[in-house]
């Protein structure tokens, strides 16, 4: 009898605990009637943001997923996207930190294409900020100047690839890419590529290692860093760590007459105040991204430093920060100081980027 009472009590307790569990649980999860076939969702990708880096930009329409990043990585190197065999990586060479030394554009502009690193933290793209959204940055590449993509061929190639058939579903739940119109297909491709590009984060340079005590600067590198972050060198106002860019636009006195691509940001805004302004490039991986400036006018870091030391051109739109040394606009650095600055700039090289799998 006692045993039966004990069993009854345990049964009551069990029922009560079930009741408690149900009462305290969020009911929304329990109301779902999930069919096994429809339950698949891409796996969220957690971007590993290095300490001190800013909040990254992700659009709600294109959240990072493990499958999307993998798809984008493959598409970045996929000749199927073009009718001429070109891929993103044809121009964005990994051994050059995903940059292009010089691109001679169809419109006659000569462009040193910035590296595809740390793009997740930027709010505009290209030298003049012509693109604001990373997710669709590559849409233009399907045009005649780059991939010259044949839409029928692209559908056919992707549809007949078991990998892409599978991966487009895994990344975007697209069961049949033929159901997408061409614009939507291109958009999904660029979404995947942008997901991959967001994962290319450069944060393992000697400078980064120095910050956490894993590398000791040489005397020259230290001297260069102190100059960089001083009013004497005054590089830091535009090239702020950790991106070594303030993500803004400046006219740093590269020219005093502005034609063609040299007009910079003004080509986008049509505002005369923006003449000669360009997005501040990152200084990370400079050793891989020569030549320098928007048009690659300088071949070496020494030339760049010498330009800021003695070659700044004055124009009405020159950035206020540049006229600190007015009326001469010269830094008057010694050769030793210039060498030190170059030595510091080279500590921003991140070899892990060119060795990424």
């Amino acid at each position: 009898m006692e045993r039966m009472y004990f069993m009854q009590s345990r049964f009551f307790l069990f029922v009560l605990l079930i009741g408690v569990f149900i009462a305290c649980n969020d009911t929304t999860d329990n109301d779902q009637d999930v069919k096994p076939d429809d339950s698949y969702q891409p796996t969220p990708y957690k971007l590993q943001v290095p300490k001190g880096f800013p909040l990254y930009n992700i659009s709600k329409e294109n959240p990072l997923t493990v499958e999307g990043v993998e798809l984008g990585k493959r598409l970045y190197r996929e000749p199927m996207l073009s009718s001429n065999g070109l891929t993103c990586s044809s121009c964005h060479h990994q051994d050059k930190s995903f940059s292009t030394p010089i691109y001679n554009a169809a419109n006659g502009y000569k462009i040193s294409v910035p590296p595809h690193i740390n793009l997740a933290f930027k709010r505009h793209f290209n030298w003049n900020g012509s693109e604001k959204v990373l997710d669709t940055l590559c849409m233009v590449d399907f045009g005649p100047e780059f991939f010259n993509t044949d839409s029928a061929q692209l559908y056919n190639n992707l549809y007949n690839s078991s990998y892409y058939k599978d991966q487009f579903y895994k990344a975007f739940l697209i069961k049949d890419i033929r159901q997408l119109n061409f614009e939507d297909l291109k958009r999904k491709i660029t979404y995947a590529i942008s997901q991959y590009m967001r994962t290319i984060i450069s944060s393992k340079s000697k400078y980064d290692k120095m910050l956490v005590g894993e590398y000791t600067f040489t005397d020259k590198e230290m001297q260069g860093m102190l100059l960089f972050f001083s009013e004497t060198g005054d590089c830091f106002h535009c090239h702020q760590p950790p991106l070594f860019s303030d993500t803004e636009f400046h006219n740093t006195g590269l020219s005093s007459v502005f034609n063609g691509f040299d007009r910079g940001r003004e080509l986008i805004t049509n505002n005369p105040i923006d003449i000669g302004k360009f997005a501040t490039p990152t200084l990370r991986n400079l050793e891989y991204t020569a030549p320098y400036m928007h048009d690659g006018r300088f071949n070496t870091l020494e030339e760049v430093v010498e330009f800021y030391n003695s070659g700044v051109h004055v124009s009405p739109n020159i950035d206020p920060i540049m006229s600190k040394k007015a009326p001469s606009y010269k830094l008057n650095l010694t050769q030793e100081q210039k060498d030190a600055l170059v030595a510091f700039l080279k500590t921003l090289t991140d070899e892990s980027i060119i060795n990424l799998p």
Partner: protein
Amino acid sequence: MKLKLILIGLFFTFIQVSCVHDEEIETQVRSGNLVLHIAHQVGSTDVQFDTVIYTNKAGNEYTISRINYYLSNFVLYNEGKIIYQTNTPVYVDARNTPITIKLANIPEGKYDKISMLIGLDATTNIHGKIPDTDENIGMLWPESMGGGYHFLKLEGKFNTPDSVQRGYAVHVGLNPFIITQQPININVNITDKNTSNLDLVMNMNEWYQNPYTYDLYTDGNYTMGDSITMFKIAENGKDVFYAK
């Protein structure tokens, strides 16, 4: 059996109480919100970036291309007593209008003064203490120059006495130069669950006057790292805001 039913009833009552969300059992305090609307003016007109030439007390003719700063430590007073205080810093880029700052959960009542810091107090003015974004990333103050953040960046062009255009960059940072906006007279009434509004205007010319008439040419067009110029600007900044 009766006892068992009572026990079960008590148990369910206990469970019900345990499952109530925390916010439902919080003490109810009658409070409302205050939204600050920040404007930047010279005289009584909004700043026109880059194009309009202004004149300060020293006679400098200048344009404005950048107004970036932090606001923090908002304090609301009534009859000399601090009633409300919040230290959440807000980054302001004057080009990104409209600029609104919401102060939440303010106790119901009348308020006759507001004060704040232009910059960050010593406990916050440390790298990594506030979230870096792609917008405020340009505000870092190099460790080798003292560390922390720029409190203020004013930039633009001015004409020298010989009519040559030059840039200026009035930057202030470092703990000794925190800019304490003195209490501003206001007339705000906060009521329960309602939002009140307050217009605050930064008069740009005040940066260059009271108590120090600041001349961009003779005092200096670059202040960063210069204790004397930063001190003068910080002192002048104590009354740059007024309530409209």
